[in-house]
């Protein structure tokens, strides 16, 4: 039976002084009484670490922690062979486990992790899944071509691929002027920031979905990619019919180079998990999945950041900056930046150990 939860929360009262060692009739109890002080000290250090992190702990306590942990661990091994006191054994097992969680806990807090992530961790993770990025890129391009071809053969496909609102003028049969109007800028920036915040929330959710679906051997991730890019292909077909390919590309490139890159990365991260589960090699499947998942998670945190950037670009420059040239310039700059950051930026690892 477990002790009641409440007593563990409130019952941190005074500890009774241990009885005189000589009074113990059993050798195993003398063994326990000799080491009990160390155990209690370890327990109090661990309890303080659990409550408030490392800052509130005195330096000599912190220095003593590894030694105390090993003392307790070795006491446990000895006690298992020499003592039949079930309560002491249970206490030691619990204590060693708690201390183990602290000694081998998360190596750094969130802030330190984030710094390491921006300065190299992110691009390292992206480079590690290069093969999946290539596969996903291929699938996405294929998806766009399929979308184009489908709509070119039969216009009815357009309505299936592109979910349109009622007032959307981007439909087959629209005139050149109508299409051009959808690419124009807004008169003012009013309302655009709300638009950006919603876009971000929405797009990140889509990316996390693409990543999480990779769990099923990556197939749903790829299907999601094909579906999204088929939509793009259909729209491209529509605009190119009126000779507006260049204008549309410029309009898309402002945020698209960041957004589609982000979607590409999240699909690739999902595929990476799926692929390592389907082909784990010599590792057990669960180990392979865990390694791939942790790498993918790093990429995904980056994708969320990219989605913030993309939403800002989509809301402001895309709607406010006019002219094909300047739109291409922004989009191209972003693409160049991401490529350079991921593939050219290779700082040396900071610490000696990388978890």
């Amino acid at each position, binding site marked *: 039976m*477990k*002790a009641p939860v409440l007593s*563990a929360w409130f*019952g941190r009262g005074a500890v*009774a002084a241990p*009885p005189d060692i000589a*009074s*113990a*009739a*059993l*050798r*195993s*109890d003398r063994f*326990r*009484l000799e080491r009990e002080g160390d155990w209690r000290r370890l327990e109090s250090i661990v309890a303080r*670490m*659990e409550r408030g*992190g490392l800052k509130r702990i005195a330096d000599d306590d912190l220095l003593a922690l590894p030694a105390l942990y090993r003392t307790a*661990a070795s006491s*446990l091994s000895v006690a298992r062979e020499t*003592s*039949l006191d*079930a*309560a*002491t054994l*249970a206490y030691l*097992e*619990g*204590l060693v*486990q*708690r201390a183990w*969680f602290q000694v*081998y*806990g*998360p*190596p*750094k807090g*969130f802030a330190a*992790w984030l710094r390491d992530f921006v300065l190299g961790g992110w691009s390292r993770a992206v480079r590690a899944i290069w093969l999946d990025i290539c596969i996903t890129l291929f699938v996405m391009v294929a998806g766009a071509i399929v979308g184009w071809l489908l709509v070119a053969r039969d216009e009815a496909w357009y309505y299936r691929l592109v979910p349109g609102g009622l007032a959307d003028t981007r439909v087959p049969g629209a005139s050149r002027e109508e299409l051009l109007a959808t690419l124009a800028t807004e008169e003012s920036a*009013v*309302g655009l*920031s*709300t638009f*950006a*915040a919603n876009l*971000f*929330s929405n797009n990140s959710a889509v990316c*996390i*979905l693409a990543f*999480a679906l990779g*769990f099923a051997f990556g197939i749903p991730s790829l299907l999601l990619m094909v579906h999204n890019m088929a939509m793009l292909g259909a729209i491209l077909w529509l605009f190119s019919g009126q000779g507006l390919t260049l204008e549309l590309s410029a309009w898309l490139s402002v945020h698209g180079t960041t957004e589609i890159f982000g979607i590409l990365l999240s699909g690739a991260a999902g595929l990476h998990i799926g692929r390592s589960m389907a082909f784990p090699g010599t590792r057990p499947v*669960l180990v392979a*999945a*865990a*390694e*791939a998942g*942790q790498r993918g*998670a*790093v990429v995904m945190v980056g994708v969320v950041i990219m989605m913030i950037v993309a939403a800002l670009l989509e809301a402001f420059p895309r709607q406010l900056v006019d002219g094909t040239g300047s739109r291409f310039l922004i989009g191209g700059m972003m693409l160049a930046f991401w490529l350079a950051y991921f593939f050219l930026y290779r700082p040396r690892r900071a610490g000696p150990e990388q*978890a």
Partner: protein
Amino acid sequence: MSAAALPANKRRRMMVTPEGLALPITIASRGSRAGALIIDVIIIIAGLIAFNLLVRWIAGGLLDGTVLDVEAAPRGAQEFLQILLVIAGFVTWYGYFLVQELGPRGATFGKRLVGIRIAARSGGRLAAEAVIARNLLRDIELFYPLVFILAMLIGATMGEDLGTLAWAATAWFALFLLLPFFNREALRAGDIIAGTWVVETPRTRLAKTLSTQGAAAASGASDVTGMRYAFGEAELSVYGEKELQTLERMLRESSPEALATVHAAICRKIGWDPGAGDERAFLEAFYGQLRAKLEGEMRFGKRKADKFS
């Protein structure tokens, strides 16, 4: 009751620390994990609602009637507040779990309350990446399926024709949702991806030494009668380690009435004439001497698991 009712020993696993020490850990039951999640979700939702109300109260009617109204596009401060709400929702949803599970307790508030935490399956360090990975998958495996299946059920009761694809999607989502029920470690998809599992947090306090008190101590004599109990070799060979530890638990926890029953049972077994009024001293002495004998044999590699062996 299937999973939650599993006896605790079916959820015991051995985890080997980097020192090579095998530590028994208990995998959290599915029921306690569900409970922890419900607590966390309630906290998040309540917090977001409170934050929302606070912002609205501070804004003083600035946000009234502007939601999704294209004509009255939000301006200035109003726009800022709306963005604040969207971002706060996103950050709270993911940040709540991330920051707390990365902390020294490795548990959210709900998990702490039910006494569980996350740990690395390998027995090594719990990496930050693992915590992030397991939290990214929570949406897809829990909330999307729940929302989707609910929508399907509502649609089905309204008499809508759903088609095969919708049912296939439901089955697929249900598979995600029920994944913890299909493996013995109760791993959800996020745990598989991250290489983590959820275990019970030990909360054992150090109990008193039994051989320093009462009649079990070296000079132990009964407080009531002042006599010392001494048991012979034959009387002590009746029981094994299992019985010894049961007796230990009884001595620590049980009432005098329960001790009287045990006392009578032991006396019957070893052929003594059970008296009355001095049960505790008798049991303490018996415990002390039995344990001394068994531990002595243990040091020579001879163990007696229970009374049958």
